[in-house]
């Protein structure tokens, strides 16, 4: 996508993860990522790439490098559900009405 402008800097632009909130009170959810030279430009780029359909109430951008991710090799020790431990799956409680978003 080079040509008309000097684009040497763009290769160095960091990546930002974009989180959007579709309804007030709901969690921000990961939408994707953008390149940008700084946080403010990341927000503008994210707006252009992920909010054009008009559903977004709020948006966060986070430098991708600040995210620490688990590795697939750890999946066993991290995420095995322990199905034999019933107390981890307390589905026998009834939720009060009015807390629909709790699940």
């Amino acid at each position: 996508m080079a040509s008309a402008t000097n684009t040497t800097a763009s290769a160095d632009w960091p990546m930002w993860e974009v989180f959007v909130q579709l309804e007030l009170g709901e969690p921000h959810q990961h939408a994707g990522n953008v390149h940008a030279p700084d946080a403010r430009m990341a927000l503008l780029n994210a707006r252009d790439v992920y909010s054009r359909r008009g559903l977004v109430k709020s948006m966060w951008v986070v430098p991708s490098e600040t995210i620490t991710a688990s590795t697939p090799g750890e999946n066993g020790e991290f995420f095995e559900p322990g199905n034999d431990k019933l107390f981890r799956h307390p589905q026998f409680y009834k939720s009060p009405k009015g807390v629909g978003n709790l699940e």
Partner: protein
Amino acid sequence: MATSNNAALFDFLLRLGDDQLVLGQRLAEWCGHGPILEEDIALANISLDLFGHAQAVLNLAGEMEGQGRDADKLAYFREAIEFKNCLLVEQPRGDFAYTIARQIVFSLRAYLLWDELTKSSNETLAGIAGKAKKESRYHVTHASEWVLRLGDGTADSHARLQNALDEVWRFTKDLFATDAIEQQLADQKIIPNLGGLYGKWLTMLQELITKATLRMPDPGMFMQLGGRTGKHTEHLGHMLSELQILPRSYPDARW
């Protein structure tokens, strides 16, 4: 010969709508050529916003004219001399710095103008202005952020943007050119008096340019005029040939 109010408004709306249409087309030329993907999308989004404004304004212009022409007819079947856009918007897209210099100069005025036009006694125009003002505000934000970063960026980006500002400056008098038609519409309270626009625009621009470590272009430089009366630079005709060829070759084409 006195011009009827509808005829005056028709002319005013052509100026307004043609500015949006022609700049929309120039920005669309970045599609696939942006410096990075995200900016490619940003410029295309702004282009689409401008086409939206152009369509609404030119449809209203057609109504005022009363000859059965709609936005498409006005966009595709007029010659360059019948276009009333300012000279600034028809210039080739140039490099990214040129585009940004033009965007800030144009968008800032567009935002202030839409803001005034929300007070129009023509309800359709006031409605269009209300919607366009919001989008236009974002265009100002987008261009301002880039002015700051290019101006206060590398030696190369600073030099390119300063050069671009100096280049576009000679079209700024044309951008604000006014005449008896606007005066008549203001006297008849159809649109507000637009005399204060230039001062506000200059103050806001000056502040941004200073903050971006750039300098204001020489106020005494030669100013080129003519857009509002159809006296265009050679670039408009070439641009229109590309914009208009499909509907002129296949007048009833649908897509």
